[in-house]
């Protein structure tokens, strides 16, 4: 009888806890939905364009955030996302210029990110260097290398084009926003759900989270802490690499110095706002993406007469308001950033 009662209590407790956790998102979602419907009634074309732009602008942020979060879930802080993105963007671009093959180019970008991930893992897991310094090394390295080898005037051999998904793309509003995107944007949306599933519903995910919370506990039941951290940081690097490839091969089509422009760091904010979860990060990234898209629309739509510097503030203002007001208490993994030393 008592067991039943406690089981019941903890179940309702669980539901309540989940509910309050998602409350912020429900409120946001409803507000966004109303805004979209109103916008659609007033001007369907602009609304669709803004939303499509929001989805695409969110892509590198979600990828960066997932790079950060699987690293941190396993206990390694990665502040080198910016550098991983930048070098991957550069290498991806070069491979495209040399071979003209976009698939090779994207793979090269992912591989570059993964290699930098391996470097970070080596520094922080094996050498136990302070992880902030390890990440900074990668950022500086990427900035230096890309700056040094950058040659002006290289021309790209095409970029990834949107693929309309047949009849789905014909649905009003939803079609152009979700079903008429280039490949990396599709891949990112799929990855969000894959990472969510792996992290919370598989053996690998359970072990990853255990290693980031209490590595010794994981070690005593036979989980290889170093292996888990290496693999997660390397896969994370691959995500950051894909984000870099997105910038040169899907969004812009060419490389510029320091073109990541802080996205790697914004991705970290996205990760924190998303409470170290893929779905949360996706929501957060869409919000950032939307703010950027609205900002662009306001600047170039020419309908409002506000100096563009003020409009440019919008995404950042939103960040502050959201983080301060709705962020709630986010708790990072307990062993985040702490090197594990076997006894």
């Amino acid at each position: 009888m008592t067991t039943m009662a406690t089981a019941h209590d903890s179940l309702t407790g669980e539901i309540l806890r989940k509910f309050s956790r998602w409350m912020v998102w429900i409120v946001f979602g409803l507000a966004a939905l109303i805004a979209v419907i109103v916008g659609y009634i007033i001007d369907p074309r602009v609304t669709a364009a803004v939303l499509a732009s929001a989805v695409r602008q969110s892509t590198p942020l979600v990828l960066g955030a997932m790079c950060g979060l699987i690293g941190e879930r396993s206990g390694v802080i990665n502040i080198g996302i910016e550098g991983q993105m930048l070098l991957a963007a550069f290498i991806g671009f070069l491979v495209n210029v040399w071979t003209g093959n976009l698939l090779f180019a994207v793979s090269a970008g992912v591989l570059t990110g993964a290699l930098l991930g391996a470097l970070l893992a080596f520094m922080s897991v094996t050498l136990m260097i302070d992880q902030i310094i390890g990440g900074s090394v990668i950022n500086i390295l990427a900035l230096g290398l890309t700056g040094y080898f950058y040659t002006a005037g290289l021309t790209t051999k095409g970029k990834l084009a949107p693929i309309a998904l047949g009849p789905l793309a014909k649905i009003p509003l939803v079609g152009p926003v979700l079903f008429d995107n280039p490949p990396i944007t599709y891949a990112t949306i799929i990855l969000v759900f894959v990472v969510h599933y792996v992290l919370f519903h598989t053996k690998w995910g359970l072990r990853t989270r255990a290693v980031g919370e209490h590595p010794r506990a994981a070690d005593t039941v036979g989980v290889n802490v170093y292996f888990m951290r290496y693999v997660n940081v390397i896969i994370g690097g691959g995500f950051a690499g894909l984000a870099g490839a997105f910038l040169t091969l899907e969004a812009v089509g060419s490389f510029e110095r320091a073109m990541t422009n802080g996205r790697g760091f914004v991705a970290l904010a996205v990760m924190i706002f998303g409470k170290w979860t893929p779905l949360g990060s996706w929501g957060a990234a869409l919000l950032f993406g939307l703010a950027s898209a609205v900002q662009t629309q306001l600047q170039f739509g020419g309908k409002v007469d506000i100096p563009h510097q003020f409009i440019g503030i919008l995404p950042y203002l939103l960040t502050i308001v959201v983080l301060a007001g709705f962020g709630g208490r986010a708790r990072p993994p307990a062993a985040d950033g702490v090197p594990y030393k076997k006894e």
Partner: protein
Amino acid sequence: MSDQIALQVHNITKRFPGVLANDSVDFTLKKGEIHALLGENGAGKSTLMNVIYGLYTPDEGEILLNTNHGTNGLQRVNIETPHDAIRYGIGMVHQHFMLVPVFTVAENMILGDEVTRGPSLDLRTARRQIRQLSEDYGLEVDPNAVVEDLSVGVQQRVEILKALYREARILVLDEPTAVLTPQEVEDLFKVMHQLTDRGVSIIFITHKLKEVLAIADEITVMRRGKVVGNTTPSDTDEHGLAAMMVGRDVILWIDKEPAHPADVVLSVKNLNVKDDRDVLTVRDLSFEVKAGEILGIAGVQGNGQTELVEALTGLREIEGGSIYLNDQELPAVNPRALVEMGVAHIPEDRHKHGLVLPYTISDNTVLNTYYQPPFAKGLQRDQKAVLENSEKLIQQFDVRTPSALLPTSNLSGGNQQKVIVARELGRPISLLIANQPTRGLDVGSIEYIHSQIVHRRDKGIAVLLVSAELDEILSLSDRISVMYHGEMVATVDAEDASREELGLWMAGSHEDEDHDAEKENQIPVEQS
């Protein structure tokens, strides 16, 4: 219990740089017995267990295991990782629990040995298995509960179940009672018997003599890396065990003269204190401590003792009431003023509040007086005076160290505590507040610190002793108060106190029923 051998280690030697942690250790565990492994801190118990559990590889020696249940065939095994140990049916419950606080019980149980269906975790099956297991062994636990919400006793139960889930036949319990209340200890002992009834063999690591005598079938004592003896509870007593552990005769029950209480030194009136979460944890407390007596405050940890001591030592603001020292009202939250008024404080957590570990021993001995002459000359420190003073204290308080200029972190727990005692007692004081002064220390250090405390009392110092160890309270105090839910539920003369009665008070049951029923229903929440 049978005569079948479950595990045997033979001639195990393990060296660490500069230390011989295990020196040709032999140890035999019979099937279904509770085998106590007794020894002081650093005697090599944990090293031996870590070898058995695959966390250390021994330099020499072998481990033999009864791998098949039927015959008595012992087989040599190589245990190189905890995974191997688990495979051979060895489970360990560590002193610091190896549970992920944010995971549920079920997630913690299956970690490393997951039940899956396809690529997904199968938590439903896991929960069913756990319920079955807890029924089989009579260990009630809710698989859906999040570990950090559970009490320490229940967390320990989860740890035991975790080992059983991995089909452990040999269970190593590393200092399992250190974190438990007396009632929880009794529950644990019941569980241990239930396990041995079902054929599980238990190695029980501890340094508490009473517990060994109460529950062990067999006792092995270690000292300085060696096994110094084997015995059974019927063949020995506390003194015998203590002498084996320490290697000489030990005074367990300090022999002290009757107290001669004089003037009131510390007087507390209607004191109310809140904890960090803003909950009133000391409620309307009034008591006095006289010069030349020891007032012991007994109680299970977390009943307001920490907040009381912090209030008395100027580390925490008080909500109401007053504190008088020698008829002078204490200033609010000013530890330095209290030090200057002659209050000595041995804090509960020596690492957090007692010492600056990376500092030298010498610097730690002047943490509360460094700014005064002779240790300071104007704005400058007088290193020579500091060093001379610390060397004198090291000698006087028997701190075992090659130099006063070593980082305090290099010392053993007992010697670190002696540094604190030296700092606090090595100057003129009128009141000593000692909170858990011997927690986690070995018998030898406990004996020394106890004698120092009694010695101060005899010199006319008022002593307030706070401890969760009933033995310590009973052995030192002249008067005993019991704290429960922030209130003093009883105060008795030490001569009239019985262990059983104190235990009941500590658990919150009183004799006068009417008053009682009311208390039981009262939950310690904030009053404003």
